[in-house]
């Protein structure tokens, strides 16, 4: 979602206006706070937030920076409160789906605040784009495009610095000394005279301070947490290691019902009729109701709901929905690739005489996100209001669409954003599919009880919203001294933005930049590159998938670079470096990875392959060591170099690179949704396979020391992995892979 770079503020304001206009007019009555609401509801206990620490927790190392809330008199801005107990509560505006941004945001703020990490708590922000917009998304509150730290870097530091300056001013006043003489460290204020006070003791007085000027931010040498390895351990580790972390599936509410939906059996199938009589006989089934998405079976528990759905008889009109077929699509895409398309890159330099030409067609399958927690959302309509609990990755969209679905004004809708069991892009979409579906179910049972809509694994995998299928066709040449002479590039595949509220802002002259990012722009100086795009429209909806267009463009660019290097008789590293003069950060990570990996020609049955790619402003190079036994590939080791600007939490960056590599390797080996008869053939982890522990290579991550503004790490580790491995396979004497996944070509055990 690098895409949001293309999103100007005015356009995003227009979007917000449009969305607001689509919801009913706001009501005059003030919105109840959650606390007031809970009191109004009779003091009931809502099991969200962070459970009490049990024995298992007590066995864990010091509760550094654990989650939890504190109240505080000092609340200088929307991001921090300091209590009289000295606890600093940091409000995280981004969704935590594993990428570590809760820890990152807390590190930024706590550093400028000079807070003791053991006194830091975190909580998740409500849906309020006025206070919590992603500054790179205009007026939208949302997480994606590897932007959480990038957009918050100054904002969260300023918030912490402001709170610190107020504490210092209060102490200066109390002690009658100049503020400039007061030192702060680990939540303690001190003065050379021997006076000292904890932040808690000064919080009350600090809350009355009016700062005359904006506080000055620290210089890099003054940081205590930012860039300090393991100085701020993950705040969510303890709760995720003792079972107390609360995900959407764990929400407990009085009388909570569970719903599963009988979804259309093929993409675009329409419900004709249904017979609920057998379903209603299942003990625990309370309702069988039609919703726009299908037929919802509601029950007192998940198992009863599933039994009820099994007993439901539904008739569907599949007269026009069963024709979608991956093999036919692939053939049609290949045919389209030979036809002129919409230009996405126009050459600024004509082709040079070609000495050698490489022509290649690449085939990429549909991919499901398959986060460990299948999609789900709790919705509760009560007292003229709607509350939802979910992994709301784009709260602004979810809020607006939930209000619209409920027929309520936006201020009558409260979102509770919980940590989610992964997303990889799935929980963020511009129509809020599973949130809206949950609201539809809540409405269909007349708000009689809170209800959790739960997707099964099969529902989740079969729901569409896939990384689209793509075909690339490339014809590239080198001249007689081995320089790139010509490059013609055609891309065929669904536009992710088309048909969404983002389309008017994103798609220019028929080109969705997310279809071609990584080819144009790319890190390479290729002024002769001519690019054309075809964007077919299908019944199955597309969606961004961890690193978006770069999932396929990096593969094509980086494997073609190797093919051209071989054609030119040059070393793949040297061949690339010659094209990277204008992108020194790309060249630097490539050199670093090659150096640390001991870049060499194949030896001892192991070959190395390399790749470099820029995505979301971060540069990542990877060298994969690959062996083959009986024609089956094994990735032994991956050496990764990353330049993401200032490395805020080095250990989180390492973890994201490791995770990106394993995620991308699983997709390279097995990832494929095959559409047959209008539906996904793979529905669960037995057929939609994922990497397992014995397939995980050894990984080394090297982080470039940088003063540049921080950029993201949640996605940029994905794109270089597949081409690096595939380049190594070719260097081992294996086939030149142009169709993914490797399972398709028999290169992995299936």
């Amino acid at each position, binding site marked *: 979602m690098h895409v949001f770079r293309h999103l100007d503020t005015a356009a995003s304001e227009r979007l917000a206006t449009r969305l607001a206009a689509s919801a009913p007019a706001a009501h005059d009555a003030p919105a109840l706070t959650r606390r007031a609401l809970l009191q109004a509801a009779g003091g009931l206990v809502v099991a969200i937030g962070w459970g009490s620490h049990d024995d*298992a927790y007590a066995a864990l190392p010091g509760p550094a920076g654990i989650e939890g809330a504190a109240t505080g008199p000092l609340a200088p801005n929307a991001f921090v409160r300091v209590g009289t107990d000295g606890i600093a509560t940091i409000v995280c505006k981004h969704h935590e789906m594993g990428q570590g941004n809760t820890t990152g945001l807390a590190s930024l703020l706590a550093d400028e605040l000079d807070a003791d990490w053991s006194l830091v708590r975190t909580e998740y922000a409500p849906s309020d784009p006025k206070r919590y917009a992603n500054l790179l998304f205009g007026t939208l509150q949302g997480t994606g495009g590897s932007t959480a730290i990038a957009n918050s870097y100054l904002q969260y530091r300023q918030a912490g610095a402001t709170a610190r300056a107020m504490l210092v001013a209060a102490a200066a006043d109390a002690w009658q000394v100049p503020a400039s003489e007061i030192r702060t460290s680990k939540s303690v204020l001190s003065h050379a005279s021997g006076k000292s006070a904890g932040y808690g003791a000064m919080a009350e007085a600090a809350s009355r301070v009016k700062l005359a000027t904006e506080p000055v931010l620290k210089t890099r040498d003054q940081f205590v947490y930012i860039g300090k390895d393991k100085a701020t351990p993950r705040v969510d580790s303890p*709760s995720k290691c003792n079972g107390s972390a609360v995900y959407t599936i764990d929400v407990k509410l009085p009388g909570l019902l569970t719903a599963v939906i009988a979804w259309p059996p093929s993409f675009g199938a329409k419900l004709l009729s249904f017979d609920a009589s057998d379903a209603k006989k299942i003990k625990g089934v309370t309702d069988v109701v039609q919703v726009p998405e299908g037929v919802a079976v509601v029950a007192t528990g998940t198992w009863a709901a599933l039994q009820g759905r099994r007993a439901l008889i539904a008739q569907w009109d599949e007269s026009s929905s069963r024709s979608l077929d991956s093999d036919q699509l692939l053939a049609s895409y290949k045919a389209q690739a030979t036809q002129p398309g919409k230009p996405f890159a126009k050459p600024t330099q004509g082709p040079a005489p070609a000495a050698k030409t490489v022509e290649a067609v690449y085939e990429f399958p549909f991919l499901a996100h398959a986060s460990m927690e299948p999609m789900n959302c709790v919705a509760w309509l009560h007292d003229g209001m709607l509350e939802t609990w979910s992994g709301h990755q784009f709260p602004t969209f979810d809020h607006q669409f939930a209000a619209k679905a409920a027929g309520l004004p936006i201020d009558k809708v409260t979102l509770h954003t919980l940590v989610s069991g992964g997303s990889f892009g799935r929980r963020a979409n511009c129509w809020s599919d599973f949130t809206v579906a949950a609201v539809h179910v809540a409405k269909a049972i007349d708000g009689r009880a809170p209800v959790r809509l739960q997707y099964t694994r099969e529902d989740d995998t079969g729901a569409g919203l896939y990384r689209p299928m793509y075909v690339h066709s490339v014809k590239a040449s080198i001249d007689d001294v081995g320089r790139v002479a010509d490059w013609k590039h055609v891309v065929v595949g669904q536009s992710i933005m088309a048909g969404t509220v983002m389309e008017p802002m994103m798609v220019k002259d028929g080109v969705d930049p997310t279809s071609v990012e990584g080819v144009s722009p790319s890190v390479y100086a290729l002024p002769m590159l001519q690019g054309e795009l075809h964007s077919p429209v299908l019944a199955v909806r597309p969606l961004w998938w961890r690193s978006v267009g770069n999932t396929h463009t990096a593969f094509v660019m980086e494997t073609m670079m190797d093919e051209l290097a071989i054609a030119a008789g040059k070393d793949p590293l040297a061949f690339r470096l010659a094209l990277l003069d204008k992108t020194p950060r790309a060249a630097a990570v490539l050199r670093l990875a090659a150096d640390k990996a001991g870049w060499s020609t194949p030896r001892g049955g192991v070959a190395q392959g390399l790749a470099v790619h820029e995505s979301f402003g971060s540069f990542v190079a990877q060298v994969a060591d690959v062996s083959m036994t009986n024609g089956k590939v094994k990735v032994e080791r991956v050496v990764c170099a990353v330049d993401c600007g200032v490395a805020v939490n080095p250990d989180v960056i390492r973890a994201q690179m490791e995770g990106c590599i394993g*995620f991308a390797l699983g997709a390279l080996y097995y990832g494929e949704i095959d559409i047959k008869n209008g539906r996904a053939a793979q529905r669960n982890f037995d057929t939609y396979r994922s990497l397992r522990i014995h397939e995980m290579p050894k990984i080394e991550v090297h982080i470039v020391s940088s003063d540049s503004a921080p950029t993201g790490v949640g996605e940029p580790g994905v794109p270089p992995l597949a081409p690096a491995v595939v380049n190594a396979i070719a260097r081992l004497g294996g086939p030149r892979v142009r169709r993914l996944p490797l399972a398709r070509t028999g290169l992995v055990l299936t």
Partner: protein
Amino acid sequence: MPIMLSVNGRSRELDVDAETPLLWVLREDLGLTGTKYGCGIAQCGACTVHVDGEPMRSCSVPVSAVAGRKVTTIEGVSSRAAKAVQKAWVELDVVQCGYCQSGQIMSATALLEKKPRPTDTDIDHAMAGNLCRCATYHRIRAAIHAAAATLA
């Protein structure tokens, strides 16, 4: 007919359909939500619990099959090995989204209770049934070795 089982050292009498998978009984009848649903067909391991000390996929075990047996979940696991595993998990910051980690920890604990010094091959065998889409495998392996070192 009520089903009796022991969960985390407490005996429980449950009036549920005998065919209900143990997973849903733990989560919805007993409120033990640390055990997660991931696939429902014993392919991902997110629902791993111990039954009489053996790791089992609770999504695929009917509750009647564990009648009279001792079930331990992430909320109740408390052996020396379990504490070492949890501590290593936190010290190495293994988790990302965290959703699979209860199951990972239960599988790793069962491994260390049998083999206090597992080899990498032992780890592959014991942990290959636990999927992690965040691919935290690199740290899972390191944390198991780290926990083993503290148990020596």
